[in-house]
């Protein structure tokens, strides 16, 4: 008997009933609903929703915060779609447009502040708390996403993990706006990006380690 026939026999002998995985769109929606509940709870208990309401009157800020949220949602959806074998890999491009809008609107606000307040405006109220916040919110979000995605079969684990981290980081940056009663400065933007970048590095390392020890499909 050839080795392949033996493998077929072994697989048939090992067959156990499995529960079919729900469609990726449904799984992504459920995960986002969970994250929304958590985010709302954090924002309402320790955030400044009133300050955020005032800032939303500015169209530039409204665009920025919507783009942040959309980046997070799009990246989470893309990660879920990439985690099943037969969905087009093009889903990975979904978060690109909101991401570009987010970075551009954030950057233009920084530029505006720099022009209005001068160089002193660039460092106004900036501290590393933003970075800590994004990482503190983003790490648990990323980990929970990676655990949920592992249930599926990401054939490209690193790419999927990067999308998950981008989603978690963007959602972290969105929730951060409830605690951020001022416009984003250059230094802030740097810290926000550093926070998301750190999440991406952590996720990529986790995914490649996972692949190297042969645990991914």
């Amino acid at each position, binding site marked *: 008997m050839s080795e392949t026939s033996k493998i*077929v026999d072994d697989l048939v002998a090992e067959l156990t*009933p*499995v529960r079919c995985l729900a469609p990726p769109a449904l799984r992504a929606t459920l995960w986002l609903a969970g994250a929304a509940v958590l985010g709302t709870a954090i924002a309402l208990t320790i955030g400044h929703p009133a300050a955020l309401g005032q800032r939303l009157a500015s169209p530039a800020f409204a665009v920025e915060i919507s783009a942040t949220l959309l980046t997070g949602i799009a990246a989470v959806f893309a990660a879920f779609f990439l985690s*099943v074998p*037969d969905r087009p890999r093009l889903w990975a491009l979904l978060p690109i447009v909101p991401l570009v809008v987010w970075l551009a609107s954030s950057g233009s606000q920084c530029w505006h502040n720099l022009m209005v307040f001068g160089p002193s405006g660039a460092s106004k109220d900036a501290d590393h708390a933003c970075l800590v916040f994004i990482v503190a919110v983003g790490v648990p979000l990323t980990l929970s996403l990676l655990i949920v995605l592992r249930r599926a079969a990401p054939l490209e684990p690193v790419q999927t993990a990067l999308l998950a981290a981008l989603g978690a980081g963007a959602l972290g940056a969105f929730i951060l706006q409830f605690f951020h009663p001022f416009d984003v400065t250059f230094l802030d933007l740097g810290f926000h990006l550093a926070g998301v970048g750190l999440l991406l590095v952590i996720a990529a390392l986790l995914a490649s380690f996972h692949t190297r020890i042969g645990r991914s499909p």
Partner: protein
Amino acid sequence: MPAEPQRLGTEALADDAAPTGFAGSRAEDFPRLMVQVQAGDTSAYRYLLAAVLPLLRSLARRGLWRPEDAEDAVQEILLTLHRVRHTYDPDRPFLPWLFAIARRRIIDRQRQAGRSHRRETEFTAEHETFLSVATNSSAMEFDLGALQDAINALTPAERRALELLKLKELSLKEAAAISGMSVASLKVAAHRAVKRLRALLGPQGGAP
């Protein structure tokens, strides 16, 4: 195909047992079979694997040059299919799902094969020969008459020592016990025998 898949033996897995043109006539049955597989139906599973195996083989052989690499890829695809069978959505076609897994595993195998081919060089018949012409002549070409003459030229004691120590590979003690010769005289006899054979058969001797 029958409404209830029959249990097929491993003989159904051979290439020639694969029904021809089933991609058209049977592909639409795969989702239903896969639902049965997800429910734990082993006969449906055996039937499905037997049906997709030739497809996977032809896909792997198109992507991998060496047949053993292609077969390794097929085995890895089967193992992955088994591990991720819960990710198949019965509302969607089966073959794109399977081929996405297959393509991934074939690419992995191509990378592995590329890496090992860069590091390793396979032996060919030329690598297994030596530079000296004499070492490459086969045993049949060896002059058996010359060897017989050389052995006949040895004394009986030398011949006995050679037989026990070199052909039967006994230790000096065992050879001494069998032949009744002392260890010292066995050593001397074997040494002389080898020396004389070398003189008779070596490059200076009669044979090449």
